[in-house]
């Protein structure tokens, strides 16, 4: 599989949010404003790419030689949690403005199942090192695309006359359903 196919596949055809249902929590929670959703998307892409790199190394150089594959869930979640912590400290030191923009969203990323999903899928699909990095990055791009699209729609939705009990989460879900319908049009492109 070429790198380009992996990119299109992970970012659009098998979009993490709309087709594979990973990372729904931030998708519903942080999609009220385009700006904040864009920051969330970029932070997630960053952590996802790093997590893909690190988990690949851990799986192939530590777990596999020691025959400890059954520890993958425990070790991956630890790696992701500490990675998020490290990234947070690093950004705080290096670029204060970026830290302030991402601020609250960074710690939230630990519990984003899309990151864990990337780590698990790249083992399942037996990607090589470079493929894994591209896979992590493109999954992040797909996540950003979905969350920004959603935020755009929700900003318009503020003005719409939605039935009282369907405001907030229910209408977001239904709109997401329509978006998912649109993304299904990409299925079978490769």
């Amino acid at each position, binding site marked *: 599989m070429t790198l380009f196919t992996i990119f299109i596949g992970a970012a659009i055809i098998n979009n993490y949010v709309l087709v594979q249902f990973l990372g729904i*929590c931030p998708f519903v929670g942080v999609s009220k404003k385009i700006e904040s959703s864009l920051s969330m998307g970029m932070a997630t892409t960053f952590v996802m790419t790093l997590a893909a790199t690190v988990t690949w190394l851990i799986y192939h150089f530590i777990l596999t030689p020691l025959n400890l594959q059954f520890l993958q*869930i425990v070790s991956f979640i630890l790696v992701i949690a500490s990675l998020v912590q490290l990234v947070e400290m690093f950004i705080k030191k290096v670029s204060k403005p970026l830290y302030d923009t991402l601020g609250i969203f960074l710690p939230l990323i630990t519990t984003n199942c899309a990151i864990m999903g990337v780590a698990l899928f790249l083992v399942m699909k037996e990607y090589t090192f470079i493929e894994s990095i591209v896979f992590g990055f493109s999954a992040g791009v797909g996540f950003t695309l979905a969350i920004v699209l959603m935020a755009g729609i929700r900003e318009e939705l503020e003005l719409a006359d939605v039935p009282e009990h*369907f405001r907030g989460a229910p209408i977001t879900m*239904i709109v997401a359903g329509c978006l998912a319908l649109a993304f299904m049009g990409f299925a079978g492109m490769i």
Partner: protein
Amino acid sequence: MAKNKISLSKEFTKGLWNENPVLVMLLGLCPTLAVTSSAINGLAMGLAVIFTITCSSIIISSVRKIIPKEVRIPTFIIVIATFVTITDKSMAAFQPELHKSLGAFIPLIVVNCVILGRQEAFASKNNVGRSIIDALGMGVGFTLTLTVLGSIREWLGAGTIFSLQMMPDSFVPWMVMILPPGAFITLGLMIGVTNWINARKGK
């Protein structure tokens, strides 16, 4: 004694409706949407979650006094990850078919916020007995929601519930219901209806 009994049953039933993890608190949405293309998948996922949440609650609530506050979240995650590994491996051994159809979503129980949420909000502050009741209630509420959602989608999308024919032969299945869009739309409607029922009860 009698008073204690009442509150224990309340501890259990709050998870079923008033504080239903999916429909009211909007936690654990990813597995809810992803695995409910059929009723049996929803039920299986629910059972796996009941097991994990109850075992983790037992461990966390019994060691809650010796966990330092600063490292409680990592501790919770390790405990949960251990039980998820057990679930994953036993399911692969005893129910390989089901394990295959749930795919990556069994290992992903580890990031299911329902479980972490209960450890943080309940098990780390209450005794073992109470935590078990609370975990069971939440688990059963989660399972019921997933099974209902799975049944609706399977019923409209394939004409069956638990693989039993539920529609006349002339029924043309709505394919979209078992595909991703159907999941979002059905769950959206279910949350909306829950809001509506709760608002009417409140009046």
